[in-house]
């Protein structure tokens, strides 16, 4: 009889331990899940912040690039002009772009002639320049978003009266994002 009572108590105690252990595991799992949720939200936020900063940077950078010494007209075509890109310099830069690959922090820079429209869909290289319209600074294709700004694209041109400055309307685009 006494033995049976002891056995019953032990069983009850074992049950309580099991109950407690089960509760603890559930509580721990609950905390782990909450923490995982917090971390996921946090890191997705971080990714968005990084993307936001990149985008903001690109918006400002596209204006900065057009006016940087490697692109800008300076006083080559008369007085200093803002948002004026020297096409001759651009073609030379394109040839040595390997050095500048990481310099502006963008995936690619493209300058597309929009007016006059003749040859505007032809990609420029050293053989067809200036009978072309798209100057892609870096040779790779890119995907992702891009930001753009209007610029004047100037170069020296020869005519029967000698050299003159020819300026056309173009759009400069800086793209961000993963490479294809």
């Amino acid at each position, binding site marked *: 009889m006494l033995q049976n009572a002891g056995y019953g108590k032990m069983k009850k*105690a074992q049950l309580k*331990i099991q109950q*407690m252990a089960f509760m603890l595991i559930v509580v721990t799992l609950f*905390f782990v899940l909450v923490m995982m949720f917090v971390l996921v939200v946090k890191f997705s936020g971080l990714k968005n912040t990084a993307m936001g900063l990149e985008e903001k*940077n690109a918006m400002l950078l596209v204006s900065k690039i057009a006016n940087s010494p490697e692109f800008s007209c300076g006083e*080559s075509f008369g007085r200093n002009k*803002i948002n004026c890109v020297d096409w001759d310099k651009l073609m030379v830069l394109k040839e040595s772009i390997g*050095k500048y690959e990481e310099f502006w922090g963008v995936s690619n820079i493209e300058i597309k002639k929009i007016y006059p429209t003749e040859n505007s869909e032809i990609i420029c290289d050293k053989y067809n320049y200036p009978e072309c319209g798209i100057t892609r600074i870096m040779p790779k294709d890119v995907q992702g978003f891009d930001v753009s700004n209007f610029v004047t694209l100037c170069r020296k041109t020869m005519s029967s009266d000698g050299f003159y400055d020819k300026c056309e309307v173009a759009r400069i685009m800086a793209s961000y994002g993963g490479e294809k």
Partner: protein
Amino acid sequence: MKKRGFLQIPFAWLFAIIVGAVILFLAVYISMKLIGTEQTTQDAKAGKEIGVLLNPLETGFETGKTTTLNMPVETRIYSRCSNQGIFGEQTIRVSQKNFNKWSETDIDVSFPNKYLFSENFVEGKKFFIFSKPFNFPFKVADLIYITSKNYCFISAPEEVAEEVADLKQENLFLENCPEKSTNVCFLGGAECEINIDYNAGYVSKKTGKVYFNNDALMYAGIFSEDNLYECEAKRLMQRVAQLTLLYNNKAELVSKSGCNSNLGGELSQLNNFAGTFSGTINLNAMNSVVKKLEEKNDVAECRLW
């Protein structure tokens, strides 16, 4: 008599206390780690944001642009410079004060296309930033100066005084200087932390002497720590070297259509100087070739810049 062990505590309680303590410890430990990670993230984000905010200072042809940067908490901005690679690198590290303690972070935000001049670190909630183009003789970059303390310009030459007044920067004074300002003297004096010899082209401080050949570099010498100044000057020369190659190639391209600039010799000379640049003491030797290039480009049939 039933034996209950030494502590007289039921096993279920003991088990719950131990596991509970472990869970609490883990929760506290992970929370602390997360707070640390968050702080590091904030510092890195602040560094990147500062870099992005500096972009508008680098557009246009203004002789000087100024802006302020307000931070929500006490912040330290550390500027570092490296000459590694083709263009070198500008690094910003931000540390913020939380619970009266400066956050420790080892995350640097790097920019190969920026040239920042400041003390070893600038500290405060409000930072004053201005930029000035550096021409050598073509435009090389916009130099950015970050300050937080007050500077008092004493006996500044007319052009410098005019420029400082035009900037309307709250921490740069020409008269009625507040106490504890750093005195920048152009004619010497007993209470001068920084002395400028405008004609000889050098800035001398307790820590040493650095050289300049135009106003953009003079301000850089005033506002920045000597080693940082020398390193940034070298980075500028690294860019000068690349730009001379670019202009040389442009000269070749336009000469194919018969438009000559006749700057090839001087450009190569400047490229050599820039390639062997070892410190701002070399600037003086480069002045003649820079001047010659400027004069020749001004009268060239096809100007290169």
